[in-house]
């Protein structure tokens, strides 16, 4: 079960405030599908290019194909730019 962490902004909008939960998914792509079926709209939201994904502490700017381990931690966060 991958551990999913959402920002408050996302969880308030899509999950009724739950910002730390578990989902079975083998890749970011399948995770997006799962999220969308559990919380309609959330999958599309996390896949629209506005978010980064931190998988086990590493930030991915445009995650899609990345594989997940059964105990992976997946945190969705605003996309990071810089100066």
């Amino acid at each position, binding site marked *: 079960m991958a551990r999913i962490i959402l*920002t408050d902004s996302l969880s308030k909008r899509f999950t009724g405030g739950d910002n730390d939960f578990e989902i079975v998914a083998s890749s970011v792509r399948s995770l997006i599908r799962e999220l969308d079926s559990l919380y309609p709209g959330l999958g599309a939201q996390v896949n629209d290019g506005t978010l980064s994904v931190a998988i086990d502490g590493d930030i991915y700017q445009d995650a899609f194909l990345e594989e997940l381990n059964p105990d992976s931690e997946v945190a969705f966060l605003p996309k990071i*730019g*810089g*100066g």
Partner: protein
Amino acid sequence: MSSERREYKWVGTRQIRPDGHDKVTGRAKFGSDFSLSGMIHGRVLRSPHAHALIKSIDTSKAEALPGVKAVITSKDFKDQPSELKPAGEGMVNYRDMTRNVMAREKVLYDGHAVAAVAATTVEIAESALKLIDVKYEVLPHVIDVDEAMKDGSPILDDKMIPIGYDTKNPTNIAKHVEFSLGDTDEGFAAADVVIERTYKTESVHQGYIEPHAVVASVSEDGQAQIWCCTQGQFMVRTFVGQLLGMPTSSIRVTPSEIGGGFGGKTVVYLEPLATLLSSKVGKPVKMIMTREEVFRASGPTSGGSMDFKIGATNEGKITAVTGTVRLLAGAFPGAPVAPACMCAVAPYDIPNVHIQGYDVLVNRPKVAAYRAPGAPISAFGAESIVDELAKELGMDPLKLRKLNAAKKGTKAAYGPTFRDIGYEETIDLAMDHDHYKAPLGPNQGRGVASGFWFNIGGESSATVNINEDGTAVVISGNPDIGGSRASLAMMAAEELGIEYSDVRPIIGDTAAIGYNFLTGGSRVTFATGLAVVEAAKDAVRQLCERAAKIWEVDADGVVWDDGHAKPASSNVGEFEPLSLAALAAQAAKTGGPICGHNAQNVQGAGPGFATHICDVEVDPETGNVSVLRYTAVQDVGRAIHPSYVEGQIQGGAVQGIGWALNEEYIYSSNGTLENTGFLDYRIPVASDMPMIEAVMVECPNDRHPYGVRGVGEVPLVPPLAAVANAVENATGVRMEALPISPPRLLAALDSSNIKQAAE
């Protein structure tokens, strides 16, 4: 990918930069140094009002002036849909962008572009601007972030739909974000000490010495060439294409040398105007901003106000932090409010955190990125209140930070769990440094502060071409803002096993190399560096294949060692090693040119942490603050070129000192900017500063073959609070608002003296 420390020939040494000779002799071509035959000149008419409806624009007199070739206004740009799209630095809304490069219904800040003229000379273009008749209906304006959030404030965009902010009434709040961890009520309940404070910072400009400049040339068949100073030639191509409705293949952007950016050149201002003017006139058009235009119309970073509350046990364990950060966005949404919230307390392992932020419109130029966007602002608040906590607890401020330091396995309040990070090491080195133990004199004080930035990777392409004489060319696609060509060439030389001086790194235009995300976020040496290393490995693989063909053995029987192909073992056969030069000389006979290439979306940037120590002396008569000594300790992963890493740290620290002590925008009651030059907008000068000691901690990032972390952003995060904490230590007066300029500090000292006298 491993980053075990092996002996390197080039990585970690201090080589002469490949572009250096051109830059010390005046040969290097910066943005305004480029010219074409037949070129004419463009100038921009800018709003004199902070907020006004544009009732009409009459350009007929300007067009009639001899020498004027074209005049454009917003009518010449098609409108754009309002939607967020990933492009450039994160998300852009082209509806806002087209309005920022040329005002449409309204002008939203003093300096907002209203029209542009192309004429045979700059003088004629400037004369023509005076002949353009714009009728305005002046509207009430708002400059201050807190004022802009109040009910009844003038509204900049009554059609704006805020993100994450529930309101039915028009508002200047464009976005609300929230991050939390644990339960802050429980955290504060467990605290022995609770402190609450409000802090404020002013908007500051990136202050690059080179104004924005562009030459655009559109030919009759619609092919556009653009030469400009930018942090991202691909970003310019995307934005100009979108704003002008041109296919990407018709636009070729060549980045000039860039005279500083710090985030401020991650957007477009003049490029779409010059391109449109050129397409109308059929001649190349050059446009250069004046310094006044740079201040009035190009992106500063946000100013902000913020509330922080911190709770801790008597032993110094922080139990909870809450924060609210309000950042001004300027005229269009896009303040760096999310990273401000995410970075504020990232250096600490705190079980209960809640931080929220607001992105707020005001009648100022739209903000642009500035080194670690948002983080210096929120860190000023967070690191000031951590200092207050240390004082309240009677603890050494570094010991307090060490006790609460984030480390491997700490779950950050913004979501992920940290892997290997070097924050504690920066505290340890700061505590052990001579500086931290040096005695202080009267009116002198010492402050410390820490800072965090994520660092980023991103899309990167690189080519390594092996030349016929055994030298190499490295083509990458990121403007070199502070020595990155040297670092890329050093990594390529290391991989190829040839001399550094035999590697020529060049920066390709948009037609010469695959897509590259712009120079920003401390990504180039890390991400483009990784692409260069992979491209060099690709070339090495081809070189080994050529040796295998020559020796008539299997390719996997050949290894690359110190610039030579060698048999992997004696089983392969006895062959004299073949040098890169020898293989290059035979390339035509063994398969043709040897060109290594790599393109990927690089992930795995290593977070950066820093801890700074600042000593100041305060003149109680004038309120002047002199920085006496400054030490900046930073985890750099691994320094490819230590001199340029030190330079990033030193330069960032001094920018932060300027932010803390002097820099601010001064607006008149009409909302016009009053300090539009370097005399009145005072960035640090040489005589203001001491030497800045850069101490590099090397905790390698195992996601990069040489262990690189980004280094450019973090140094700007700690200085604001380090300076303020030092001033408090010197005077006993806590400056909760920046800048700590002489009149402000003098007023604070005077009122503190009056208070003390009264007690």
